């Protein structure tokens, strides 16, 4: 009798878990890698970069970020048109289902302003990423020197990304 009750409980828990997976939030499905900050001297704004992997079947969108260390964090996009470089605030960067999107130099990036204390290369700064569905997740960004060209964990020749290139590992319909 007791055993039956335990089995029932387990089933309920399992069903609950399945239900949670089925309605997983963006934050649950996004993995963050190569996260780094470009630290400029003084209190100049820093640039934040990372690769977002969406493991879910639903497209996700990054809408912003916040941090205890920086008073203001904004999602920006750099672009070059007609030889002129522009930077503008954007409301979201989409991450395709089962695909990737990059916050990369020359493209989408986070602009972090007004550090509350000096951040030095080698420090780790925790940011809270916010997604379009309201979910959030924490990610650790490694502070790198001004003249860094990438997260420092690869040795590949860096490429300037002028627009985000969703590179997917599996099938993905545009």
């Amino acid at each position: 009798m007791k055993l039956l009750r335990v089995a029932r409980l387990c089933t309920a828990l399992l069903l609950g878990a399945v239900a949670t997976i089925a309605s997983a939030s963006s934050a649950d499905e996004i993995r963050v890698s190569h996260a780094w900050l470009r630290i400029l001297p003084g209190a100049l704004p820093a640039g934040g970069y990372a690769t977002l992997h969406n493991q879910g079947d639903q497209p996700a969108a990054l809408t912003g970020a916040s941090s205890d260390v920086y008073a203001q964090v904004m999602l920006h996009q750099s672009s070059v048109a007609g030889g002129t470089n522009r930077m503008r605030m954007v409301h979201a960067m989409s991450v395709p289902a089962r695909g990737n999107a990059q916050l990369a130099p020359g493209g989408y990036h986070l602009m972090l302003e007004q550090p509350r204390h000096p951040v030095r290369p080698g420090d780790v700064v925790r940011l809270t990423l916010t997604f379009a569905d309201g979910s959030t997740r924490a990610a650790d960004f490694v502070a790198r020197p001004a003249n860094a060209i990438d997260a420092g964990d690869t040795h590949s020749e860096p490429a300037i990304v002028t627009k985000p290139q969703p590179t997917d590992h599996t099938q993905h319909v545009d």
Partner: protein
Amino acid sequence: MLEAMNTIRPRFAPARRLRLLLWLSLAALLTLGGCQRSPLPLRLTNISGHMPDLDFTLTDDSGKAVTGADYRGKVVLLYFGYTHCPDVCPLTLAQLHVVMQRLGAQADGARILFVSVDPARDTPPVLKAYVNAFDKRAIGLTGTPRAVEALSKRYRSAFTREPGGTDDSYAVSHSSAIYVFDRAGHARVLATPSASHDDLVHDLHLLLDDGATP
């Protein structure tokens, strides 16, 4: 051409003679102008003769008044930007640093001139700390808005303060080009931030070798 000259006979009609004379003068001019030195096999956009020589009156990052003539003898990489630009300006300067590293000891013959298009916020000390964080051969330049605009216009570059920002926080759209000048201050190469490091290193080698031993 010499053969043609030998066949000239005084019996030619005056009009035809004049025409021949004109052609010969043109050929002589071309020889003088074009073949004085063979053109360098530059890989990036060659702007030799299409842009004016390096000339400006600005303030360097140690607060000293400088002109274009102060950088004669150096190969100059001129780039417009501003320190509150957290993405593309640092990216470009970081890439120029990589290029300078690849030039090795020869890089001492080159200077990166980072001209601020935001002179209101970019004081010499701010600029100095900024450019030094990228490369020790980089120099920050600032000046009156009029002087900065004059230099920018000289190279058909433009910059605009973007509307919508507050007094302390605003973005400046600006040209992404890198202008390269030879040791004599002549404009030679136009590069974009997406230019390959190999091509930039190649062209800088040519310009640094050229005129290194006068």
